């Protein structure tokens, strides 16, 4: 098992390097001279040139990229063009808010998705099943930022129950979490349903029933355990996906997370900030996927045994 984890961790290195290379290349192609942006439009050309030289912008692309990696390994991802503070400081300051929102979104998705999926599967083609499947389809078809605005319209503007934005305590987390979690809830519902349906048809479930095990126990203990394996993958993938999707939800609810930092940075043409936030979220995303795979191996002994 340790060998497996080590193997996967090592595989992460080329992925992270690749991600930084791709994002760095994209940002390198961005039109506009960073030195000019920092000094402003009216700065004299000599000064701009001097700053370009200081920042190493006159070096070839590959030299600049390796310098970026070298500094990055030391935790230095440059300074924001607009605030002049180290970008990593800003990202770290904002990351807890994004993480909180993402975890809350995943929780919403799990709390809705798994029970609804199980009930749908045990009562296949019932009214409950049909309603929840239509609901799940609507859930994946809605633009989540629009759904968020509709929630604001109902619960903040009309009913005045919940705040429409900001990060002030639990009540302000409710709407953003539902907004972010809905599409994931829909996917988890569908996955749970189909995974359960597949498992309940198997022989060992018939055996358990024949033995006279209570139906509740058959479903919750015997069936769910095996049905969970693909569900865990979906939950994990969704966790990573929501981390990226939080960009839109954060914009809707003025949530002070990395997503909004990124959107603001794009508006201000703050390249180091854009670069670092995309790399940061992608690396977190990869780590989450790795953890899901490891968890997967724990849950499914068949995978574990391959790496003994």
């Amino acid at each position, binding site marked *: 098992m340790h060998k497996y984890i080590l193997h996967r961790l090592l595989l992460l290195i080329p992925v992270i390097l690749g991600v930084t290379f791709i994002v760095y290349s994209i940002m390198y192609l961005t039109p506009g001279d960073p030195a000019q942006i920092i000094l402003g439009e009216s700065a004299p050309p000599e000064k701009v040139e001097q700053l370009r030289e200081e920042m190493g912008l006159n070096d070839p692309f590959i030299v600049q990229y390796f310098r970026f990696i070298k500094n990055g390994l030391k935790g230095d991802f440059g300074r924001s063009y607009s605030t002049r503070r180290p970008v990593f400081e800003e990202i770290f300051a904002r990351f807890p808010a994004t993480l909180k929102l993402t975890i809350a979104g995943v929780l919403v998705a799990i709390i809705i998705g798994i029970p609804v999926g199980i009930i749908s599967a045990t009562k296949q083609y019932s009214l409950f099943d049909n309603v929840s499947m239509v609901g799940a*389809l609507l859930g994946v078809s*809605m633009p989540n930022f629009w759904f968020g605005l509709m929630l604001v319209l109902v619960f903040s503007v009309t009913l005045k129950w919940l705040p429409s934005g900001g990060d002030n305590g639990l009540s302000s987390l409710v709407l953003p979490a539902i907004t972010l979690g809905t599409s994931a809830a829909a996917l988890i519902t569908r996955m749970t349903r189909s995974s359960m349906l*597949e498992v309940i048809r198997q022989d060992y479930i018939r055996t358990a029933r024949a033995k006279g095990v209570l139906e509740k126990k058959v479903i919750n203990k015997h069936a769910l355990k095996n049905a969970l394996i693909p569900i865990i993958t979906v939950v994990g993938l969704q966790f990573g996906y929501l981390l*990226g999707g939080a960009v*839109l939800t954060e*914009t809707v609810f003025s949530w002070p997370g990395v997503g909004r930092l*990124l959107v603001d940075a794009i508006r201000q043409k703050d390249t180091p900030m*854009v670069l670092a936030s*995309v790399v940061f979220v*992608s690396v977190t995303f990869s780590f989450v996927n790795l953890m899901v795979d490891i968890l997967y191996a724990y849950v499914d002994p068949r995978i574990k045994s391959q790496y003994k």
Partner: protein
Amino acid sequence: MATAKKSKKNKKRSQWSEVWRRLKKNKMAMVGLTILTIIVLLAVFADFIADYDEVVIKQNLKERLQGPSAKHWLGTDEFGRDIFARLIHGARVSLKVGIISVGISIIIGGILGSIAGYYGGLIDNIIMRTMDIFLAIPSILLAIAIVSALGPSLMNLMIAVGISSVPSYARIVRASVLSIRDQEFIEAAKAIGASDLRIVLKHIIPNTLAPVIVQGTLGVAGAILSTAGLSFIGLGIRPPAPEWGAMLAGGRAYLRYAWHVTTFPGLAIMTIILALNFLGDGLRDALDPRLKQ
């Protein structure tokens, strides 16, 4: 010879008519197809329904933020423009972005996937590991990075959305190619001296079409959603051009007094996505009955 050709043609036709027959039986898919047809017709004949310059673009501040009425079915936006007219013209933008960006992903992903699957070995490894790296970046972030680098415009939006979903098509095509590559009819084609290009184009690609069509249909939905999202954060098409995500974002400031400005564009997006999802699911079942359980 002539009869052989004829029977081959018949068989070909019957294969697709078989798919169509199965699709027709699927109520949800037919609902989806009907909704899509209506939206496409509205988009095609948009100019006959509402003039672009006079109704869709021109501001009329006297009538701003009016609720739905007989004159303005879905009300007016913050510049007094008819929302229904803008939605119809916006459908053109969304359909165009959806189809072209998926086209970009299918072409690039298809080429990479077939090369990787057909040749295997080192080439396969290089291509697929590169795809893994692209997959490690959440697609919305990749699209944001590309648009912010290229600058916001319709073309750049399509490129960004298209590139960000290349890896999933590459994977699908590679998997199908791998499953076909070692079959006997490919061996037979090789034995009679067919070139690699001919084998891939004539024998392998047609057999990978089913999963690509399904993924493509669902992909158009995804592309429309991503575009709306990018427009929502201000990386989309520049105003005053009508785009659903941008219209929705424009209404955000007036949510308190004019709910309809935000609500209707969102409903429009949801309707088209739902229709595409219905059709995509139906196509999957119709193209590969084995998958249906």
